[in-house]
Structures are given as C-alpha cells and as structure tokens.
C-alpha cells in the first residue's frame, strides 16, 4: 500500500513536471513568461550556488521560526489562562472574535510605520496571523475536557495546577498540535508575503527583485523554493505531532490500520 502510494505520488509529480516542460515548448504559453521546467531547474541550481540565496533562505526561516515560537507560546499561555480563569473567556470572547478575522496583511502599513523593512515587521504579521490559529485550538481543546475526568481529579484532591497538568493539558494537546501545525503553514505564508510586499530581507524580497529585474526563470525557481519549504514544514509538523501524540488514540489508531 505504502509503496504503491509512493509510486503514484512520484508519477503524479513527474507528469506535472513534464507538463510544465511541454506547455511552453509547444508554444501554448510564451516561454518568456512561463519558462519550461528545465530552465527553472537550471535557475534553481544557479541560485543554490549563490551565498546570498542561502542568506535569504536563512532570513525567511528565522522570521518563520521566531514568529511561530512566539505565536505558539503566547497562544498556548493565553488559551489556557482564558479557559481556566473564571469569566475571562466570556469577557474576551467578543474582542477575540473582532480581532481574529482581521487579515494579517491588512496590518502591513502598520508594520511599515512601526518597524520599517526589518525582521520585526515580518514578525508582527507572522505572530498576528499564527497566534489565532493556536489560541482558538487551545480554547476548543480545553472545552473538550471530560467532565467526569475533571470531577474525578477534583474528588481525588488534585489542585489547580495539577488539574491543568494531568487533565486539561493531555486533553488539549491534540488540539494544540493541530493549531501549531496550521500556524506553521500560515506563518510561512505571512513571512514570504511580508518580505514580498514590504521588502524585508528574505526569499520574498528576492522574488520581488527577480520580478522587477525581468529575471523570469529565477523568479519561478524562488517560488519553487518557497513551495518546497512549505512541504518540508508540513512534513516536519506532522512528524512532531505524531511523536508528541504517540499515546493518543488518534495516532495509535492510524498506526493500527
């Protein structure tokens, strides 16, 4: 089953790449604006040999990782606090529902005013977008706590901290992991967007430079890199999730099937 999937996946990718090569070669679209796969691959190799490319990749990953860590940390702490402290959830619900739908990209002018084209303006956008993903999942996760387990813990005389640690946290963890996985993808999108629009150093800014320079194959090559990055981040987040939740029935069930 596994092997068959891998073969099918590879075949799909190969067909996609072949189509990317054939469509411009057959003249269906202009080669100048949609270079064939081989030319993009060529540009990718040239990029990989350039030190400034790796610096840009490093900047993007720094913005992503710092932003995600901040958002996950703040989201988890805020989520648990909101759920545990009485009345806090009700008091903040309307504010959260107001702030959450604000698209992070709408904050670009604010980021530019506050921090210019530095890493901090990227962080502002990344943290804002990723934070809600984690917070909302934590809130749902805490709601999911089994009342019987909670009551049992109380009757066994577990204190507040112990109940958070042994009842609330194990219940919420699968949700937290989902939140962090979603946030990881959102954080990458926002990091690249911020660089592209604001010009903060990173892959996004490099794409913008390639675009204004009429360097079309290089631009596609860099876009491919961001795609690969997204893929790696998703695979990484899933494997972290599997490890952290190895005890949980959702993961154990997956292995059994």
């Amino acid at each position, binding site marked *: 089953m596994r092997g068959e999937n891998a073969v099918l996946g590879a075949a799909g990718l190969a067909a996609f790449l072949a189509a990317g090569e054939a469509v411009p070669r057959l003249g269906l679209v*202009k080669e*100048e*604006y949609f270079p064939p796969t081989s030319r993009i691959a060529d540009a990718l190799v040239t990029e990989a040999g350039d030190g400034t490319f790796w610096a840009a990749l490093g900047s993007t990953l720094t913005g992503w990782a*710092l932003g995600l*860590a*901040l958002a*996950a*940390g*703040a989201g*988890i*702490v805020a989520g648990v606090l909101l759920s545990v402290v009485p009345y806090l959830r009700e008091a903040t619900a309307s504010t959260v529902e107001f702030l959450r739908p604000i698209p992070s990209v709408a904050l670009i*002018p604010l980021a*530019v*005013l*506050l*921090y*210019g*084209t*530095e890493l*901090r303006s990227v*962080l502002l956008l990344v943290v804002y977008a990723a934070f809600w993903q984690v917070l909302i999942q934590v809130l749902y996760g805490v709601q999911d706590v089994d009342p019987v387990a909670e009551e049992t813990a109380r009757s066994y005389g577990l204190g507040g901290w112990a109940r958070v*640690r042994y009842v609330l*946290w*194990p219940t919420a*963890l699968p949700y937290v992991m989902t939140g962090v996985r979603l946030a990881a993808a959102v954080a990458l999108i926002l990091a690249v967007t911020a660089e*592209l*629009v*604001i*010009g903060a*150093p990173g892959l996004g*800014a490099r794409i*913008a*430079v*390639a*675009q*204004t*320079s*009429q*360097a079309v194959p*290089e631009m596609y090559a860099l876009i491919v890199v961001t795609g690969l990055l997204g893929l790696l981040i998703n695979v990484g987040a899933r494997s972290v999730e599997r490890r*952290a939740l190895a005890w949980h029935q959702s993961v154990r069930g997956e292995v059994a099937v």
Partner: protein
Amino acid sequence: MRRLFVGLTAVSVLVVATACGSSGSGGPDGTGSSGGLTTVKVGLIPIVDVAPLYLGRQKGFFEKHGLKLSLSNAQGGAAIVPGVTAGQFQFGFSNTTSLMIAQSHNVPVRAVANGIASTGEQGKDFGAITVKGDSPVRSPKELEGKKVAINTLKNINETAVRASVRKAGGDPDQVDFVELAFDQMPAALDGGRIDAAMAVEPALATIKNQGGREIASAMVDIAPKLTVALYFTSTRYAQQNPDVVKRFQEATAESLAYADSHPDEVRAVVTSYTKIPPEVLAKVTLPKWPAEPNRSSIEALARLGEADGLFKQAPDLDALLP
C-alpha cells in the same frame, strides 16, 4: 510530555523577553557610529537608478565623508516615505512627483540630493511610451480612447504620458489609464491586454526585445533633462543633523558624477543588487546622473502636476528642494 510543556513555556517566555528587549535597542533615530563613521540607513528600490550609491559605497566616497552606508531594499516608494519620516531610514529614494505629493499632504520630507534625470533625448531615454510592434498607433495623439498602462495612477508617469499626448495635439483626458507594475507590462502588451505602456528599464528593454516600438519619450516631453527622482530625508532629521546631511549630499554628488562617467562600472554594480539578466542589462538605457537637481524641470513637473490635479495644495519647492 512534561518536558514538552516546560520546554514550550520556557521557549515562549524567552522569546517574549527577547522581543521586548530588542524593541528598546538602537538609537531613537536609528543612527549609530562605528570607528568614527556615522552609519546612515538608506531606503532604496532595487532598480538601476540607485546604482550610484552602490558604486559610491564601493569606491569609498561615503567613507571619505565619514559615512557608512547601510542600503536597504524596500518594495517601492510606499514603504520608503513612511520609513524615512518614522526614522527607520535616514535617507530614501523617491520620484520627484511623489515627494511633491507627500509635501502637499504635509508629510515632512525634504530633498537632499539629485537622484536621476532623463537623458533628454527623444527616442533614447530610459522610459518611453511603447506599443506592440504591429500596433497602428504611431503618435501619442492616437492614444485617445486607448488603454495605457502606467505603474501608478496620479503620479509622475501619468503626468508624463499626459504631457506627450498634449504635446502631440491630443486630449489627455480621453486616455484610459490603467495601473500595472512595470514588470508586468511586457506580457500585458504582448498579450494585447493593453494598447500601450509607459515602461522604464529594464521592462523597456524587454518590450523592445520582443519587437515593441517606442512612440514617445514621455519624460522628455515634460521638460528637457527632467529630474525624475531625488534622495530625501525627513525635515526633522535635516534640522537635527545638518552636518550628516551635508556630508551625504557631498558624497552623493561625487558618486553621481562618477556613475555618470563610468557606465560600464554601473552595469557591473547593478548585477550585485538586481537579477537583471546580462543580455537585457547590456541593452538597458542608463539614466543621467547629474550632480544637482534641475530646478526649472521640477517647476515644469509641478505645473503639469497641478494642472492634472495631483496635489492638494501647490508644492512649495523652496522648502522641498535642497
């Protein structure tokens, strides 16, 4: 799992702490000194126009005047003007009309040095109104009722196209202006989505490579040797650091003069901060880099801009220009 929880908490606390700490660091206006040199941050757009600063830095002109240049690429002037007025950049690069618009909206900006000028030669400028090779349009007058792409509406390129249409005896109000980034103009023109495009290098070279035709050097139609762009600072920074501004002016003037007389070195340095392909770069028409802005051309640009309704109030050139 306890370890994971403790770890996550520790990481978040640490990160929050560093983020709070870092926002307090750095001087209030972002300037710093190192080894007797004053570091100034300059907000630039990654285009050929700003090559003199890269070249001047390489040649040590700024170091000679006690300045260390930190050049940052911003995506367009929209990020540079707020960056300069908020103090993230000490200097920035902007086109002349944008600065006049900013000033007419009471944004505290002040030009300090020349940026670029048009070559002043019809048919040999770095920007032009272009049409597809097989287009029937021969003169800007025929753009009436046609779809003409410019990079920003109500800015210098609109003034330029309107000037060309007017000069050719047409009515600029009949032109259908659409906003399109320079880099997208070649494809849009080729695909027939627009009838004409006011393109600048390197998009202009790409358009000509695919058989496009220039019908007018619109910048030249505004004024001969038009000062198209300038380096600027905030009025506050200019008042507080007159000495730094003076040194920046001197070093920039020197760099501009050097760039203007060494086109080969310009083309070489451009590859260090753009990705313009070598075959395109070889065909790119370079702008002129006179050391001083051309006051009479800026007055002409201001008059045309006023006539086209670009400004809230008439720009005060005495306050704006160096």
